[in-house]
């Protein structure tokens, strides 16, 4: 087949190639090193760690535990999240705006902070525990263990589920509903036969994300698990633990997790490619006012889930103003925690923001190049880049962190602990989201707008800078701001690659929690959250409330 490649085509493919090379270097290369490192000792294959892993009950128990936690959490979250999204989409709920803001804030709250505040509430010396113990004269064990982890994850995942599913529901045209009803299909039947199949791809993708987050999460499980070992905690202890350090074992476990998540990723792509539902909504679904018992139940459910999701924020904020001594909160209030917090944070605040800013600029540049090249100048190269850049979605932070350290620790890079490595971890983790949203925005920019610009005399470069990029930017900004927030609150992979010079706010918070300095940790968390909320304020301002979440 003869095909004439224009100069633009070549230029954009070269740009895509260079962006993709950066991605390969900071993502595929470390993962490759990780797997090689686990099976190759330098003078031969060594499958000993794998054998040990599969033969040791201790490890296998962790695998089983991880599966149990992730499966149970995912199933519950699918139900709670979809229900939540449906109610919010179909019914007028009082205080919807406030709920939306609370949920958005809660999604930017790092999960480990949720776990931590549940400890403050329901832990051994938590308020609620103490209250019940005093009341009934009993000794409740607290929220720890399996159900504690599941509970924390569900609280957090429900909102994430809701946001993505709600985005998909927004695209369901109300005429589809009307057509179904017109053909005699209504009520629950209509939901099952029309609505659910339409949002299924989104539900599946989000479910997969939830599963992955739980499967290899470190922060929450280590705080709440208390001896309930999961993969995330084992990998971390094997890699950085004080007593049982075993780097080969850590690589082996990380590799196993990686292989497993890759399979899930391929499964999700496969399902996704088989069920392509193109939706373009001209008539969004009209919200109705719920009546009677349905209204009561709906409101109760929405308020309860919102409260569960947002409660950690308030707990943390309240605690930060309490007098504290170690992990005990004393009666009375003081700003002492803040004094200590600012002292210990030092320049970590500016540092965190600076890193986040650099990361987000890089993310935008790479995302715009890869998605623009793939949409306007598609080639096998850009298609590969587009697919593979989705992969970080399912690679657990812990695994990515270990892979980065192993790859860039020694010669010739010596990048471990540097700002460059922290930033590249953030870039890699958030890139898929931004590429997705950029691709979505680009699909809505008609090529004729670019052609109009060119026929008016603007060369391809000026067309891109004066027409395409400005049009893209407004659509891209909300997602970028969310990525910014997620980056600065990132814990599980930053924990692997930082050193004391590059510690970010979330690292310091985590350290304080581990030391038992709950007061200081609360104050730090509040500072982090307040600053994140400020960014959210900008988000609302620029998007006029029209942000959307797509996957």
């Amino acid at each position, binding site marked *: *087949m*003869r*095909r*004439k490649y*224009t100069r633009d085509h070549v230029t954009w493919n070269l740009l895509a190639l260079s962006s993709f090379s950066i991605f390969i270097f900071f993502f595929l290369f470390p993962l490759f090193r990780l797997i090689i490192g686990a099976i190759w000792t330098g003078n031969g294959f060594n499958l000993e760690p794998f054998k040990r892993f599969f033969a040791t009950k201790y490890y296998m128990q962790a695998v089983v535990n991880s599966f149990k936690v992730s499966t149970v959490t995912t199933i519950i979250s699918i139900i709670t999240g979809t229900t939540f999204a449906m109610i919010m989409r179909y019914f007028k709920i009082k205080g919807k705006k406030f709920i939306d803001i609370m949920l958005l804030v809660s999604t930017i709250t790092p999960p480990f902070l949720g776990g931590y505040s549940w400890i403050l509430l329901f832990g051994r010396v938590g308020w609620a525990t103490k209250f019940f113990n005093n009341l009934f004269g009993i000794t409740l064990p607290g929220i720890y263990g399996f159900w504690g982890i599941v509970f924390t994850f569900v609280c957090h995942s429900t909102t994430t589920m809701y946001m993505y599913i709600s985005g998909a529901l927004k695209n369901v045209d109300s005429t589809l509903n009307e057509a179904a009803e017109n053909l005699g299909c209504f009520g629950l039947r209509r939901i099952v036969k029309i609505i659910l199949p339409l949002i299924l791809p989104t539900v599946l993708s989000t479910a997969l994300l939830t599963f992955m987050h739980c499967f290899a999460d470190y922060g929450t499980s280590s705080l709440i698990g208390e001896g309930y070992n999961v993969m995330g905690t084992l990998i971390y202890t094997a890699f950085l633990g004080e007593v049982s350090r075993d780097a080969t074992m850590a690589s082996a476990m990380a590799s196993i997790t990686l292989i497993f998540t890759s399979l899930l990723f391929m499964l999700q792509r496969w399902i996704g490619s088989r069920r392509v539902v193109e939706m373009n909504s001209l008539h969004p679904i009209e919200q109705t006012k719920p009546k009677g018992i349905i209204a009561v139940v709906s409101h109760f459910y929405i308020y309860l889930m919102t409260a569960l999701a947002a409660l950690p924020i308030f707990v943390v904020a309240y605690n930060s103003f309490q007098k504290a001594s170690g992990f005990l909160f004393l009666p009375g209030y003081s700003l002492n925690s803040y004094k200590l917090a600012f002292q210990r944070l030092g320049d970590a605040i500016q540092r965190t923001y600076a890193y986040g800013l650099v990361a987000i600029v890089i993310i935008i540049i790479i995302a715009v190049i890869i998605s623009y090249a793939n949409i306007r100048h598609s080639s096998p190269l850009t298609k590969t880049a587009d697919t593979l850049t989705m992969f970080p979605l399912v690679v657990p932070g812990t695994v990515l962190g270990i892979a980065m350290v192993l790859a860039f620790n020694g010669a010739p890079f010596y990048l471990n602990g540097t700002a460059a490595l922290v930033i590249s971890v953030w870039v890699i983790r958030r890139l898929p989201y931004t590429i997705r949203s950029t691709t979505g925005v680009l699909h809505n920019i*008609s090529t*004729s*707008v670019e*052609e*109009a*610009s*060119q*026929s*008016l*005399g*603007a*060369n*391809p470069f*000026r*067309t891109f800078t*004066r*027409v395409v990029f*400005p*049009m893209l930017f*407004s659509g891209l900004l909300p997602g970028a701001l969310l990525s910014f927030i997620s980056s600065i609150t990132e814990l599980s992979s930053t924990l692997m690659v930082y050193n004391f010079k590059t510690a970010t706010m979330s690292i310091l918070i985590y350290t304080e929690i581990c030391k038992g300095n709950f007061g200081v940790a609360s104050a730090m968390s509040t500072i982090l959250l307040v600053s994140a909320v400020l960014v959210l304020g900008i988000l609302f301002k620029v998007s006029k409330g029209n942000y959307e979440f797509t996957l």
Partner: protein
Amino acid sequence: MSVTINIEHAKKAYGKNVVIENLSAQIRPGEFFTLLGPSGCGKTTLLRMIAGFNTIEGGEIKFDEKVINNLPPHKRNIGMVFQNYAIFPHMSTKDNVAFGLKERKVKDPELSKRVADVLEQVQISDLADRMPSNMSGGQQQRIALARAMVINPDVLLFDEPLSNLDAKLRVEMRSTIRHIQQQAGITTIYVTHDQEEALAISDRIAVMNKGEIQQIDEPVKIYRKPRNLFVATFMGQTNILDVQIENQDVMIEKVGCKYHFDRIKNVNNIKAGKMVVRPNDFVFADHGIKGEVTERIFFGTITTYTVKTEIGDLVVTRDVNEHMKEIGEQVYLDIPVEVVNIFEADGKNMSIMEDAG
């Protein structure tokens, strides 16, 4: 200032799929030239080759003597108006219109003056500072027109610019475009699938089918003297009757009506032909094709009848002022030999009339 556009043996192919094989046409300076054809006939493809958005696989396209085959779009000095308007959504009306001038490094005060003038011309001066997001299709199309005109292009290209507008607005915009084009005298190529629009707006029309130009002529000739059956049937509703031809004598099969055509120039001595009769060509008379009125639709200025005959249902339209026939009434349909055309029944269905285009 006006240029001649010479299309010489142009070829367009996507891989092995040849869309346009070998197409030649000359568009005169200042002319309003329309490419008319059904969807998929290659008219938009040709327009985009001229604009520079499609590559040219063979032949040459010239503005006057300058070959533009490999000139990138932004260097062709073309004003183009798109079907979906392609207004830059992040710029105000004024900025949209000023875009091309700024690319040409035109500075104030000339810039503002030219923008203001063209906005005046398309009658949207009051929208100058508004953003396009909430404007109607008609308003957006006026911006697009102003934006294309203001750069004093050598060539104006229109890609089905009115197809997204409602019927009334379409007629209004049609005359605006025609008026402005005549004032400016810019060589213009206009793509449409709407034959009425083409007839109303053009100096000349090129009827296209399957990547080939069927006929290039003035609107009246295209309508009255079609070169082949495709052109005849594409220009509005038609009745096609099978006929036998003997020199200049024509007999309608089955019903046995005979007519003598002075206009027939049957060089190939064709025996079998197809006669194309437009609904308004039929005349109710006391002789001709016998039939019965089975349906009558009243449109206001005209009335359309369906007449059942031995050679099938025929569609007839008559003026409102004429005496109306009733359903079930026996009628005879006569054919005015001075206006109907006859084509070869086989091959390329060429016209056998001596005055065909």
